[in-house]
Every structure is written in structure tokens, then in C-alpha cells.
């Protein structure tokens, strides 16, 4: 199976170059950014909103936001791909929440989590492309319930309480699935999060 994400993340040098040129307001840098991440961004958003016209709009908003905020991005130590993907996912979740009336929570919570500063200055002992591959493999190893809760969190933006309602399961059970799923993903990444 071919993972475009790996391809896109593999070339950290190209990302640095693109980020630098975006900060210089070079228009074709935006084209390059789109060529690297556009398909992924579209796929993630489409998976969330399940509507191609809406997805197109949100892709545009994603790149608009990146373009508008790139001055705060550290091209030397920043992780451009993860930032772009986060902005994309958040646009789509914001959209979902806005149409079912969960707006107030998301506006506050998601926007703080996508400032470019949060994607900078992070020492890593693994390349992003390796981490993405490991994570993808680790996800496939989860059991069905664990996969479901991770998908509900990531693609639907549901809290554990909301998941429990949707899955018609006790909250404690859902919390266990979430905790063990995240633990498994972390373990596979070899990062026990002991900062």
C-alpha cells in the first residue's frame, strides 16, 4: 500500500524551503505546498465532511489559513506537514460541529491547537515520515473498538462522553478503549511521553 503521507513527509528539506518561500509571500510556493499536501488534505477533509463541495471550500480555507499564519512558523525547526494536516482536520471538525451546534467548544479549543508555534522547536529522534509509517501500522494493529474510538475522536471530533452515547456503551468502557488505544500508538512510536 502506498501512503502519500510518507512521500510528503519524507523530504524535510523541501518543506523548509517551501516554508521559507511562503514567508516571503512567493505565490508558487503555495502551489508547491498544494502539490505536496493537497491530496492528503482533501482526503482527510472529505473523510470528515463527506461532501465534495464542502471539502473543496475547506481545503481552500486550510491553505488560506496556512498562508495567513505562516509568518509565525519556524521553517528551521517546524513540522510543516503536521501543521498543515492539523489545520485541515480542524477546519473540517469546526464545520461538522458548526452544523450540529457544537460550535462554542470547538472555536476555542481547536484554534489554540493549531498555532504554528505549536509545530516548532520540537526535538525528535525519528523522522516524521518514519513516525507516520509507524503510527499507521500501529493503528492497523488495534482491535475494532479501539479503532472506532480513535476514528470517532479524529474524524468526528467526539469527546469520550459523546462516543459513549453514540456507541451506546458505558463511559468507563469507552475510556478504557481510548486509553489503551492511545497507549498502543504511543508505545509503537517508542515515545512514552516522559518529557
Amino acid at each position, binding site marked *: 500500500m502506498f501512503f*502519500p*503521507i*510518507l512521500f510528503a513527509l519524507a523530504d524535510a528539506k523541501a518543506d523548509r524551503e517551501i516554508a521559507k518561500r511562503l514567508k516571503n*509571500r512567493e*505565490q508558487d510556493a*503555495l*502551489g508547491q505546498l*498544494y502539490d505536496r499536501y*493537497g*491530496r*492528503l488534505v*482533501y*482526503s*482527510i477533509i*472529505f473523510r470528515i465532511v463527506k461532501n465534495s463541495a*464542502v471539502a*473543496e*471550500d475547506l*481545503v*481552500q480555507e486550510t491553505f488560506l489559513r496556512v498562508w*495567513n*499564519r505562516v509568518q509565525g512558523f519556524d521553517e528551521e525547526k517546524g*513540522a510543516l506537514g*503536521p*501543521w498543515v*494536516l*492539523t489545520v485541515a*482536520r*480542524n477546519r473540517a*471538525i*469546526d*464545520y461538522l460541529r*458548526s*452544523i450540529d451546534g457544537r*460550535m462554542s*467548544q*470547538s472555536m476555542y479549543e*481547536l484554534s489554540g*491547537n493549531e498555532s504554528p508555534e*505549536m*509545530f516548532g522547536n*520540537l526535538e525528535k529522534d525519528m523522522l*516524521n515520515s518514519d*513516525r*507516520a509509517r509507524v*503510527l*499507521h501500522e500501529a*493503528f492497523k494493529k488495534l482491535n475494532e473498538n479501539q479503532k472506532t474510538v480513535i476514528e470517532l*475522536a*479524529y*474524524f468526528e*471530533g467526539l*469527546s*469520550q462522553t459523546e462516543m459513549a452515547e453514540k456507541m451506546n456503551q458505558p463511559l468507563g468502557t469507552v475510556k478504557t478503549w*481510548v*486509553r489503551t488505544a*492511545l497507549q498502543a*500508538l504511543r508505545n509503537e512510536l517508542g515515545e512514552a*511521553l516522559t*518529557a
Partner: protein
Amino acid sequence: MMCEELKEMYELYAMGVSGDPERNEIAAHLARGCDACTHGVKLALQTVSFLGSIAPMVDPPARLRARVLAIAASQPKSNRFWNWQQAWMAAAAALTLLSLGLWNQLIGIDRSLDEARQQILAMTESQEKDRATIQRARGALSFLNQPETRLVTSSGSTIELPPKARVFVNRRSGVLLMAGNLPKLGPGKIYEMWLIPKGGAPVPAGLFQPDETGTAMHIRPGEMDVAATAAVAISVEPESGSTAPTTTPILVMGL
């Protein structure tokens, strides 16, 4: 709470789905520059971003690239104030929520949506709040545009719904009113909109008739002093209009 107790929640926090009290706790740690939590959340944000690779890959339409590039092309003219096209779009969709009798107008709305897309492009950071409204509008539109969506009417039985209205104000472009469930008026009567200044008498802001479903959109174009305006009101008047309200307003919307 200690960082140690929070670290299992970093990924959920990164996805914006953590519950209280952990969410507030983590936010507080980040706000005071806690190294452990900042590092943990940064790492979690990256980890979580890779979950995007679970999504089945779908090819975007080829035109999307050009739309994205248009962002950069349109940028120097940024900071445009949000305009009535967006307001109309939001208004149009919100109106459908007030009254679902607008099915036939949707084709027209959809067309203006295309034009509005180009305007959305030009929006900058300060305008993102407005975008939330537009997103909601788009949600309603996409709902209405789905072929399986059906208009349900209560045939035979009439339900009296109270009049509702929303008002958009813009210091450069004026006032946009959207109203629903307006009672049908007798012959020779019309609705009149009023701007009520703080500590002043109501100023006429135009006449309008709702459609058969009781919905109406009305604009009073031109500049307005938003800060000096206390409210927007609607009253029933003789069809030639009045210079001061002659009946008690049926709706008053404070600004």
C-alpha cells in the same frame, strides 16, 4: 493537577476532544509555559496529525489547485470588510431555518454561493468570526441541496409560530434583516423597519412585505453608526409607510 496526571490526555487535547477538568488543566499548564505539558502537547499534535493517513485517499478535482493558488493572487488586497454577498449567503441559509418554504429559491442561492466563494478567499484572520456564520449557512445549504432532503409540511393543520428575526449590521453597508413567521397583513398594511438610536426617536429604515410563508429579507443600505444604535425594530404601518411608528413594534432587536 500534576503534569503526570495529564499526560494520558495530551492526544485527546490535541484533537480538541478532551473533557473537563483535564482540558482546562492542560490549557492552564500551557498558558503558564509548563515545559513538560508544552512538549507533550506538541508531540501529541504531531502524532495525531499522522492519523490523517487513515483516511482513504481521494483525488481532489483538478480545479482545486487553481482555487488554492488564487489565495495568494488575491492577498495584497486583504483586509476587505466582509461584504453583503457573504451576509446574504448567511442570511439565505438562516432564513431557511426560520421557514423551510424556500426550496425554490435555492437554485439562486447556490449560484450566489459560487460568487461568494471567491469573496471568502479574500477573508483574513480578523474575518474568521464571520466565517463561522457562513460555515453554518453552508451547512444548511448542503443539507438542503441533498436530493434526499424533503420539505415536510403539516397539511391541514396550521401552527402559529411566533415571528422571528435576525439582524446583521455593518458600519459601511447598513442593516440586513431576515425575518420569519411574520403574520400576513391586511390590505393597505406593510411592515416597516426602524433604527432606534440610543436616546433618540426611531428612524425609518424601509418598507417590506414578507412572502406567502411569512419570510422576508430586507436591507437598509448605506453607512450606519453601529455604536450609536440601540436597536432595530419592525412595526406594522400603512402601506405608504410612516415617519414614526404608529403601532407597537412586533419585534425589537437590541444591538
